[in-house]
């Protein structure tokens, strides 16, 4: 670590001399999608380009300047997210009659990709919030939709998605939280783990066991904060995603009214999986945004940093490396957008495509961000430079919303099942 110490001293000198323009330069203007072949506007309709522009502008003005602070101080940026909600980002694919924006899955992917360039962690939370709002909009009855969706779309209230438990992650259908019917209430007992927003959010979409073993015994209940018997674990300390709190959600004889059940008993698991299809596209889109920003940062660094008498951009290895990064980024983007279109159109290949897109994009984009960090040399390791935060923030995308191993299970099952 001695070399890092020396580098740190040199870097500190360097940054103090050119602190104003170098760091500012590093953050503010570079994510505007300028380098041509990776421009995320290619292939979009004029209207989608407008959505993308708003999202990029919002990310550059409202998120990029605070991304590092939110990460270091673990701030949940409620006001910024509410500003985003005023633009329509609170319920992007929720229907307009309950306050949503009524856009397509592809529009949504484009928006989250652009927002992610400003802060991955916050955008990822916004996408989880959107997924919950969509589940209530799609599977709830009119009374439930009117009760919950308008507040969620405006982010007057925030939502969390509760499926994972300490004993059931990939094997989600083996969840143990029970919901026993008693009169007009379900009594919930059990706990959920790793819940994004847990403790700070108002509405919890909870998958719990009302029936027997396996997926068919699972139902979906909406639990509101303040319900007696609902409590939270300690805030987890994470490598990234620090602008959203993560806590265990604990139910101890927590009584939830039957009118808070979405759909019928036994439909909960299927709802959860349908929610996750979209969730996977959203998370993959967040990875795309991080990779895009990282490619921009790496490109700009190569054009500025000199070693051996010339800029790094003259080095063939780095040129080729950058080309590979750009190619994988565009390939990932195309797969994610195709999956979004397939889901929107309810195509038979939608589920596998969503899994493939999540698998491919999260893996490749993590590598892209990691390579971009490497290109920055010692500077890439400093928290003054944004690239390390992109790496840390998107690492978890390969794990949650279905691990990339589970994605392989889904895809291989599709290939190997005799039909």
């Amino acid at each position, binding site marked *: 670590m001695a070399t890092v110490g020396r580098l740190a001293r040199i870097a500190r000198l360097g940054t103090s001399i050119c602190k104003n323009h170098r760091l500012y330069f590093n953050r503010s203007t570079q994510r505007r999608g300028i380098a041509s072949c990776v*421009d995320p506007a290619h292939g979009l309709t*004029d209207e989608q380009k407008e*959505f993308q522009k*708003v999202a990029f502008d919002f990310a550059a003005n409202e998120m990029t300047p605070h991304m590092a602070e939110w990460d270091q101080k673990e701030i949940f940026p409620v006001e910024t997210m509410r500003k985003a909600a005023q*633009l329509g980002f609170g319920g992007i694919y929720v229907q307009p009659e309950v306050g949503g924006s009524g856009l397509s899955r592809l529009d949504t992917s484009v928006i989250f990709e652009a927002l992610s360039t400003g802060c991955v962690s916050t955008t990822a939370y916004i996408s989880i919030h959107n997924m919950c709002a969509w589940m209530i909009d799609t599977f709830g009855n009119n009374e439930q939709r009117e009760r919950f969706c308008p507040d969620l779309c405006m982010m007057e209230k925030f939502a969390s998605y509760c499926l994972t438990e300490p004993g059931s992650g990939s094997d989600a259908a083996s969840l143990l939280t029970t919901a026993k019917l008693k009169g007009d209430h379900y009594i919930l007992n059990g706990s959920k783990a790793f819940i994004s927003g847990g403790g700070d959010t108002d509405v919890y979409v909870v998958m719990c066991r009302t029936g027997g073993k396996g997926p068919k015994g699972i139902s979906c209940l909406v639990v509101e904060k303040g319900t007696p018997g609902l409590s939270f674990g300690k805030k987890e300390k994470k490598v990234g995603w620090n602008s959203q709190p993560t806590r265990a959600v604990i139910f101890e004889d927590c009584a939830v009214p039957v009118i808070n059940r979405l759909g019928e008993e036994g439909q909960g698991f299927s709802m959860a999986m349908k929610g996750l299809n979209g969730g996977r596209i959203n998370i993959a889109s967040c990875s795309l945004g991080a990779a895009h920003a990282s490619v921009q940062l790496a490109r700009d660094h190569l054009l500025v940093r000199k070693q051996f008498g010339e800029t790094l951009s003259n080095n063939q290895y780095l040129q080729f490396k950058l080309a590979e990064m750009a190619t994988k980024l565009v390939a990932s983007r195309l797969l994610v957008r195709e999956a979004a279109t397939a889901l929107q159109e309810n195509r038979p290949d939608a589920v596998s495509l969503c899994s493939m897109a999540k698998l491919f994009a999260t893996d490749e984009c993590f590598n892209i961000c990691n390579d971009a960090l490497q290109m920055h040399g010692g500077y890439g390791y400093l928290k003054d430079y944004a690239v390390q935060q992109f790496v840390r923030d998107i690492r978890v995308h390969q794990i949650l919303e279905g691990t990339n191993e589970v994605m392989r299970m889904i895809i291989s099952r599709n290939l190997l099942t005799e039909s």
Partner: protein
Amino acid sequence: MSGRVLVGVKRVIDYAVKIRVKPDNSSVVTDGVKHSMNPFCEIAVEEAVKMKEKKIIKEVVVVSCGPQQAQETIRTALAMGADRGIHVEVTGKDYEQLGPLQVSKIMAALAKKEDAQLIILGKQAIDDDCNQTGQMTAALLDWPQGTFASELTMEGDKIKVVREIDGGLETVKINTPAVITADLRLNTPRYATLPNIMKAKKKKIANLKPADLEVDITSRLEVLRVDEPPQREAGVKVETVDDLVARLKEAGRI
């Protein structure tokens, strides 16, 4: 004062792009380069939309002169709250030579045609930095002008304009109809919201040619050459103050 406001918007190379000069020094590279609405035009649109929200004016009509892509810029303004657009189609060589004189003739003709009570423009475009269109438009229409506006207040049918000038701030009161040009601190342009972007799709954009307005857009200027700014050269170290003074005299600086 009620009625119609005309807002001119220009599609320019995005402010964050690094400009490159074509190898033949004829102009800058625009092909494949990211373009967006001139930032001062955004401020002009925002001011007009705010006036409509305060019910000071009834309709905001957005105008842009240029090729097909100018419609993207008009759509952005519609998404911010303008009511309808007018695209004056100018393409090819005509577009390359389109300057403030031609645009101001078009704006003046449209102001008469649309019976506008107010024209709001950005103070200048960030590509040519001319800072002439507003002033020329006012002269052609013989209307008063409030340029470099950082604050606008309606007072009956007059407008009080606080102008940013070199010496500080100057306040003038002008009659309407008038031409205003927007400066940086006039307002902070809003983000378009997703619902407004979708509503903008349904708003109308009329297509016109300069000939339809009986405007002659031939240029009176010929661009001879475009060059990059000179590269910054290395400095020279001097030992004494006398040496410094001698060097400065030599360079003709003092």
